[in-house]
Each structure stands twice: as C-alpha cells, then as structure tokens.
C-alpha cells in the first residue's frame, strides 16, 4: 500500500473505508494495536463530522517521518459552513447538530497532535498526528 491515501467522504460507507485505510497504514508502519484503534476511531469521528456538518469532503492519510520517529498524519477537510466558535466546539459536551458533542475534544485526547482551522468562508480543516511508540 502506498503511504498516502485520499478518501472522498460523502456517505456513511466512506466513513468505514477511511478508518480502515488508517488502520491499514498503522499496521504497515508497525503501530501497537491500541494506537491503531485510537487512530481508526479518530478518523471515524472526523469523517462523521464532515458528513454531518459539510455533507462532503475528504480525508488524507499519510505517513510522516521526523528524525527517527515515524507517524501518521490525517487531514480532514471540507468546504462546509465552518465552525463559528472554535473554542466552544472544543468544549466537551458541545454540539450544534444534536450529536453527542464529544467528537473534537475526544479526537484531541486520542492523538499526539491536533490542529483545527476553520472559518465561515473556507470550511474546516482538522489535522491530527499520531507517532509510533
């Protein structure tokens, strides 16, 4: 498998495809199974957010190297309405869609790095990183 994949996110089946792709790469890179599961779960939440808030978008999964560290970067991006209040969206329990409102803070907890960029004109881009232990 190439160390980079782009998965268009449009339906609930794409959510499953995206997280399976993430797990596949994690396995290839030799991640411990707990971390593969955390990564797959995080990808699932990000893909779900794309469908819920923006209807469609895409997820990019790639391997990264920094010195002798190996990791995986996932970028979830859409051209949806964007997040009006980022600090509110990062609070546990907050949701504008009637969902559980646990998505983003939960994803941040599961990952080593987390970056969220969003505005109401350009949509939302979430970048997460998990390093191999």
């Amino acid at each position, binding site marked *: 498998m190439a160390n980079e994949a782009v998965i268009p996110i449009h339906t*609930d089946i794409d959510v499953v495809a995206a997280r399976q792709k993430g797990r596949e790469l994690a396995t290839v890179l030799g991640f411990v*199974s707990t971390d593969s*599961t955390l990564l797959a*779960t995080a990808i699932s939440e990000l893909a779900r957010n794309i469908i819920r808030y923006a209807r469609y978008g895409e997820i990019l999964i790639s391997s990264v190297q920094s010195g002798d560290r190996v990791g995986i970067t996932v970028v979830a991006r859409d051209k949806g309405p964007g997040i009006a209040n980022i600090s509110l969206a990062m609070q546990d329990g907050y949701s504008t869609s009637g969902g*559980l409102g*646990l998505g983003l803070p939960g994803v941040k907890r599961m990952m080593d790095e987390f970056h969220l960029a969003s505005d109401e004109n350009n949509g939302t881009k979430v970048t997460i990183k998990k390093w191999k232990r």
Partner: protein
Amino acid sequence: MEVPILKQGLYLIASIQAALSDVDLLHLRDGLAEKVGKFRARGVIVDVTVLDVMDSFASRTLRDLAHMTRLRGAETVIVGIQPEVAFAMVQLGLTLEGVDTALDLEEGLAFLDKKTKRHTSRG
C-alpha cells in the same frame, strides 16, 4: 452488511460479522425492536466482538437499541467489546451509560438468565 439475528429460546442473538455502516446499525436497531415482538423475546444479546471501532454513532445507536428493546419488554446486553475498543471509547467519552454489558456470549447468556428469571419466577 446485514446482521444475522438468531433465536435461541427466549433470547435473540445478533452476531455482528463485519464492520457496519451507519445504515447497517440503524437496520439492526430497528430489526431487533421489531423482532422482540415477533418472537416474544425476553432478552437480546448483541455480540460486537468483531467491531474494531466503536465511534460516537455506533455507541449511541447501541444505547438506543438497548433502551428501545427495554421499552418493548426485553433486556439487552452488549457482549464482546474488545479492550482496545473500550480504551478508545473511554478516551472519546463514550461510556454506554444505562446499557448492560458482559465479557462474551457465555457471560451474556448467564446475565440474561439471571435478569429474566426475576420476572418469570414471580407469583
């Protein structure tokens, strides 16, 4: 992928065989709520052993499923949540509150036997 639902005595056993899409999960929820009536089941076991990811949607749908079947008069127990999956769920804040769980199918059956006995042995 459709989840096969087996009838065993007073119980229904839904044994998930592969990763499920959201639509599959909703079918499972609605199918079980309906079959509880059709088979006059007193207990439901949902075996999630093969699920390698339990995200917010799956977790919420299973919770709804358990509550719906309870309203229909049957107890539900979720069995087979893998240790890594449990860890990821806790990180996400998904605790399946108000839903009974058991280690595996065997423990799930024992749990339902105990729980449904209380009702049937009265009077």
